[in-house]
């Protein structure tokens, strides 16, 4: 700093302040007094500095008269227990060390920390604002705005919901499913029996209507006789009856839908 190094014209600034405040040795004081008697600049400066000191001293007296009292209540415990507060190796509290860290940190660190804290607070506020605790069919359910997963108490029976607000017990659904499976198996067994009976009847009818066919091969280019045509029509009717038996059976999708 240039101003700190500046001295008066005589280059005796340090001697001047030492003399002004009475911090000179006898020899130095005598030597400076001899200089003062011959140097108008130092004499003038010494007088002016004396006036400055008086002015500053008067200001200090005003400050002391009107200085406020300082509250230390709550900061110093009534019982004397020095170092009751946790401090680090430099005698600072954790909070004080944190404050000093931020005070000495660059602006981007301070602003970044504030921004991160705001984001965390916003997320926490969002989660708290959307938190829901429900009681449905004997179970508690908790959910937040951030995680939509529902956490349920494991000790109570679980439920499934086919539609919103329409919860059906799981046990009931399992029983219905088992009943539908049994009905399906019974129906399939009836279908197999009916089909076997129909096929057997068709074979018997063919055997009854064509007793001579087994004797020799028929000529390929010969027109079928009227009896043969009638026999062929009968076979078609029998096959159609067997097919009609399958069509009359209930369908699986209908059974499942009726179960619900």
């Amino acid at each position, binding site marked *: 700093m240039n101003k*700190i190094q500046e001295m008066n014209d005589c280059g005796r600034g*340090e001697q001047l302040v030492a003399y002004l405040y009475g911090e000179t040795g006898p020899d130095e004081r005598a030597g400076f007094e001899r200089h003062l008697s011959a140097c108008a600049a130092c004499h003038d400066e010494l007088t002016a*500095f004396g006036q*400055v000191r008086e002015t500053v001293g008067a*200001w200090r007296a005003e400050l*002391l008269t009107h200085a406020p009292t300082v509250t230390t209540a709550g*900061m110093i415990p009534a*019982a*004397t227990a020095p170092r009751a507060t946790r401090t680090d190796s430099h005698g600072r509290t954790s909070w004080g060390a944190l404050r000093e860290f931020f005070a*000495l940190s660059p602006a981007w660190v301070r602003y970044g920390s504030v921004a991160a804290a705001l984001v965390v607070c916003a997320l926490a506020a969002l989660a708290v604002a959307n938190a829901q605790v429900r009681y449905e069919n004997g179970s508690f359910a908790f959910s937040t705005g951030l995680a939509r997963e529902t956490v349920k108490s494991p000790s109570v029976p679980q439920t499934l919901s086919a539609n919103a607000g329409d919860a059906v017990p799981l046990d009931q659904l399992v029983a219905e499913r088992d009943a539908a499976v049994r009905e399906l198996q019974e129906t399939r067994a009836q279908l197999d029996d009916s089909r076997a009976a129909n096929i057997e009847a068709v074979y018997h009818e063919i055997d009854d209507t064509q007793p001579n066919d087994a004797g020799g091969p028929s000529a390929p280019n010969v027109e079928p006789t009227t009896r043969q045509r009638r026999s062929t029509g009968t076979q078609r009717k029998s096959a159609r009856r067997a097919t009609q038996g399958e069509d009359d059976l209930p369908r699986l999708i209908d059974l499942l839908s009726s179960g619900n």
Partner: protein
Amino acid sequence: MEIAGTSDEQIVERALAGDGDAFGEIVRRWERRIFALAYGILGREEDARDATQETFIAAFRNLKGFRGDAKVSSWLHRIAVNQCITRQRRARVRGETSLEGAEEDGAQFVSELEASPAVSAEGREQTEAVRRAVNALPPELRSVVVMKEFEDLTFQEIADTLGVPLSTVKSRLYTALKQLRLRLEKHGVQAARV
């Protein structure tokens, strides 16, 4: 408990012995001087209040470290100066280097001072001029002149507190007085009639 005629050192001994009210007497005795010192160095009432509080809290925490080699008052003032210097360094990091023109918004103490019936209009102007002149000094000059004028510390004590050579203290004090003279003369303050 009779405390009025007791020395500071005896009160500290009582505090160390477990007297819960003893340290409060130390605070009552020295809080105004510590505040004035802090205000002179820092230039802002709020900072001065905080520094004064921190001074007494630090003194209380380090009470066991007080050996009695120096006076309690010197010990307290050294703590206060260190608190103020720490605050100045923080302010410097934040870029707050000058107090010139600093307003005292809501400063209750300053408004009470200026409204005092014992202080004339001319005195109020001079008080304000001195405050502005001192505040206009760079922190390193302001600290030296306040420590010398307010606490009457020796050059060597100031050098030890600030950790600078003795000649630096003298040159800083000379420069500070020179700048104060120029600023006070500019505002027409000739002599101490505050």
